[in-house]
Each structure stands twice: as structure tokens, then as C-alpha cells.
């Protein structure tokens, strides 16, 4: 796979974005997610009100791919009911596993589609999926 398909402008910009990188004041749930083998180590914080995710923050550190994936995810889930967030996580993970390939179906993931290529890079798959697995764990705790 070519580097230019991996480090696209969309990804590097989300990867460097600071938008969701500030700790929440009153998170209802905090979940740590780690890829022990490569050093990605993030914390997801959510503020949930009446079943709706009002704010999402991602702290910690990780590679451009995990950070981009996290930033895209945070943007997508803010304002969504938790059930919806769970569905999006399943959709994203399905895309990476190549279980879901239909473009129309994937449209919902918006810029998340920029990570579709990752399925061809086994060494980086875990980077892209880390925030979403962390989200699934976080939602279980609510």
C-alpha cells in the first residue's frame, strides 16, 4: 500500500486536530484503551445526558492513524444517542474487517471512510480500531 493512500490530507489533519483533546469537566464515563505492542494509549471521556452523548474527548497519545480515527469518531458521536454510537462503532469495525463494503451504507461514517484502506495494512488495523473498541467498552459501562 502506498504511503499517500495512508497519510491522506484528511487523516493527517484529523490526526493533528486538537478539537477533542481537552479533558471533560464531568465525564460520566472514562475508558482507557491500549495497543500494548505499538504504544497507542488513549482515554475516552464521555458526557451523557438522557441517553445522548453530549461531549466526547480523547486524551492520551497514539499514532496519526489512531488519533485521526479517534478525532473522527468523537466528531461523529457527539450529539448522538448511545445506541446510535454503538451502531456506528459496529459499522466502522465492519468496514475495517471488510464485512461491510457497500458505499451507501458506509456514508454514515462520513470522514471515517478515509480509514477504509487500513484493512490492507494488518500492522495498522489495530491503530484504527482502538478508539472504536474503547467506545464500545465505555458504552457498556453506562
Amino acid at each position, binding site marked *: 500500500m502506498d504511503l499517500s493512500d495512508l497519510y491522506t490530507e484528511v487523516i493527517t*489533519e484529523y490526526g493533528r486536530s486538537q478539537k477533542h483533546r481537552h479533558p471533560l469537566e464531568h465525564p460520566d464515563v472514562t475508558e482507557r484503551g491500549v495497543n500494548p*505492542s*505499538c*504504544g*497507542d494509549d488513549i482515554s475516552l471521556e464521555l458526557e451523557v445526558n438522557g441517553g445522548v452523548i453530549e461531549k466526547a474527548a480523547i486524551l492520551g497519545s497514539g499514532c496519526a492513524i489512531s488519533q485521526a480515527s479517534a478525532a473522527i469518531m468523537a466528531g461523529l458521536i457527539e450529539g448522538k444517542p448511545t445506541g446510535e454510537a454503538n451502531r456506528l462503532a459496529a459499522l466502522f469495525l465492519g468496514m475495517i474487517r471488510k464485512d461491510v463494503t457497500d458505499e451507501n451504507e458506509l456514508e454514515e461514517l462520513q470522514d471515517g471512510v478515509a480509514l477504509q484502506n487500513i484493512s490492507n495494512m494488518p500492522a495498522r488495523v489495530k491503530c484504527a480500531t482502538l478508539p472504536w473498541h474503547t467506545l464500545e467498552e465505555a458504552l457498556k459501562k453506562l
Partner: protein
Amino acid sequence: MNKYLHDFPLLLQPDEKGRRIAYLDNAATTQKPQAVLDAVTAYYQTSNANPHRGAYDLSEAATKALESAREKVRAFLGAPKAAEIVFTKSATESLNLVAQSYGMSFLNPGDEIVLAISEHHSNLVPWQIVARARGAFLTYLYTDESGRILPGEIEKKITGKTKLVAAAHASNVTGVVNPIEAIIDRAHQVGAVAVVDGTQSAPHMAVDVAALGADFYALSAHKMLGPMGVGVLYGKEKLLEAMPPFLYGGDMIEYVEEQTSTFAPVPQKFEGGTQNVGGAVGLSAAIDYLNSVGMESIREHERALTAYMLDRLRGVPQLKIVGPDELQDRIGVVSFTLEGAHPHDVATILNADRIAVRSGHHCAHPFMCHLGVQATCRASVYLYNSNEDIDRLAESLKGVRRWLGYGLE
């Protein structure tokens, strides 16, 4: 071209663009010279049998192959006796053997185990387990910010309560060669046993375990041109004799009755199950290869490469070396970070230029935490590397930040 390169088939292979690999992950595992592969194949084609067992010629040939590999390792490490060389499957197994067999038998509640904070998990987690099981305490020798253990720390931490000290001869993160003589001497002064992880030192410098006075010394064949699946534990005979076995089974027993057993003398006591004779033959051939080059020449070659690498890396903007920035007391392992670029991305981008470096925590979480870094990139050399590999590394590194969307500097 480096004169040893032609002995290493993998390193000669061009990719579809005609590029050789710049293999700079030697601290993780090394490539194998054809001579090692041939020795293993020849063993299986002419001498393969279960050793120590048969009354037929082939089994005798296998026994001889295993025992002459043991003798080769003994001489390589300067161990007084061949019975002090135990074959394992990896340095990790060697260190677990010491922890489980020595540690669980001879450490008591309240005893202190002192580890270097820079230890690889293989010489750290086993001691956490032993400490918890035996009610002993773990304390750490901390390093300065460049990863060096200072003399005062050794005096302060290794005390009358210390019963065991475990430290690497050389660090797989920073390349620092620890003051291992001072650590061993201090350990012996207070009556403690010294366990040395030689995984990163034995492949790169002449080692004499008897001169060092190490009580145990562990290494892995695959990091010194040998096959995977073979490790070594050197242990002083008196200690090995006093320790209970580790794996129980064939070839390590004396008598077995229904309820009890007695065990063979060392080293067989620690070699339960059919031994990896093919692997031992490969390690033996690897030692032959290393000896033919000469451990002093290897050290010199790597010192020159390291000097060149440190120099070239200083020329990469925004790069920070993690570990000592000078040549003294170090091996050819260099960790670094690049501002704004996660090590995993750096490695991916270097890979596109067919340069292999490792990124991550290098199985040393507590050390990374102590140094205040989450992860680093690590380039590590061996006898087959050349300045050309370093040049490729440095040039490729200069392009990394651009790939990640930072403007041209």
C-alpha cells in the same frame, strides 16, 4: 558493500524496486548467515535423532551435536564448566527458570529484589510474580535521564536486605552498557545473587561470565545469528545444583516411582523433554561465524556505525535521541523520537523506503514511564550493517514530518 553482507541471503534480496532492505532491528532479532541455515539442514540430513537415549549411532551423533554445542557456548561465555550451560528456548525462558526455580526456593518474606528500572519485561515481570508469591519486595535502580545507572544508586539500593539483583548487561532501549561489574560486586558484598540478562550484550561484545562473577547469565540465540527457539542459561554449578528443576519430564529424572521422583545431575535436571538439537547446532554454527569475525572486530565495527548514526541523527531536524548521545559504554542500539510524529508512523514511513526499525515501548514499560516517553523508534545495528544503511535511515527520517502533514522545514 559490507563484506559480511553476502553471507546473509535475506539481506541481499532486492524488492520489486531493486532496493535491498536496510535492516536496523537487530535488537529484536538478527538475520542468519547461510552457514547457520546449512548447519541446521545438515544436522537433519545426517545426524537427527533423539539424543541421550538410543544405543544406535545416529542417536550418538545427535548427543555429540548437542554436547559439542554446549561446549561451544561454554567457551564463548567463558563459563568454567559445560555443566553450567543449560539450553532453554529463549532468554525469556532462561530468566523465568531462574525466577521460578531459584527465586521461589531461596527468597523469603521481607527479602528485597533489586531490579534496574531499564529491564526488559522478561527480566522484570517474572520477579514481580516471585516477589508477590514469596512476600519479597521489589525495588528499582533508577537511571538518570539518559538511561545510565549512577554509582550512588547502586550503593543506596543494594543493601543488607537485598537477596537478589537482576540487571541487563546492556539495555535494549537506550543501548547503555550498564556498570554490571559494579552491580555484581555490590550484590556479592551484601550476600545477594546477581542475575544478568545478557541478551543484548553477548551478541555484540566478548563476554566472560567467570571474570564478571555473574551468578546467572541469560541469552537468546536468535539475537546472535542463531535460530529462533534456543536460549541459554549460564548458572554457577553450586547454585544450579541447589535449585529444584523447572520442567519435569523425560531425560531430567533419575528414578520415578508412582508418588515421587529423583532428578538427574545438572544440566540435564533443567532440560526436561526432547532438546532442540537442531537449534543448538544452529547456535553453535552462529558462534563459529561470530568467532571467525571476532567479537572485538564486531564491537569495533558497531562502535563506528553507532558514532556515524549518532552523528547523522543529530542532523535530522526535530529529532531527539532517547538515551546517551555519546559513544561511551553503549552498544549500537539508538532510540529516538521525532517531534510531532508518533514512532509507529515513523516506522511505517521508513518501511516505505525499505528501512526496518522498531517502534513502541520495546517491552520496557516501566523504563519508558521513567524516561517520560510513551514510545520511541529504535534503530539497532549488527556486523552486516554499513554507513549506507544509516544514510538511508537519516535521509528517510527527514521526510517523515512532511508525510504527516507538517509544512516543509
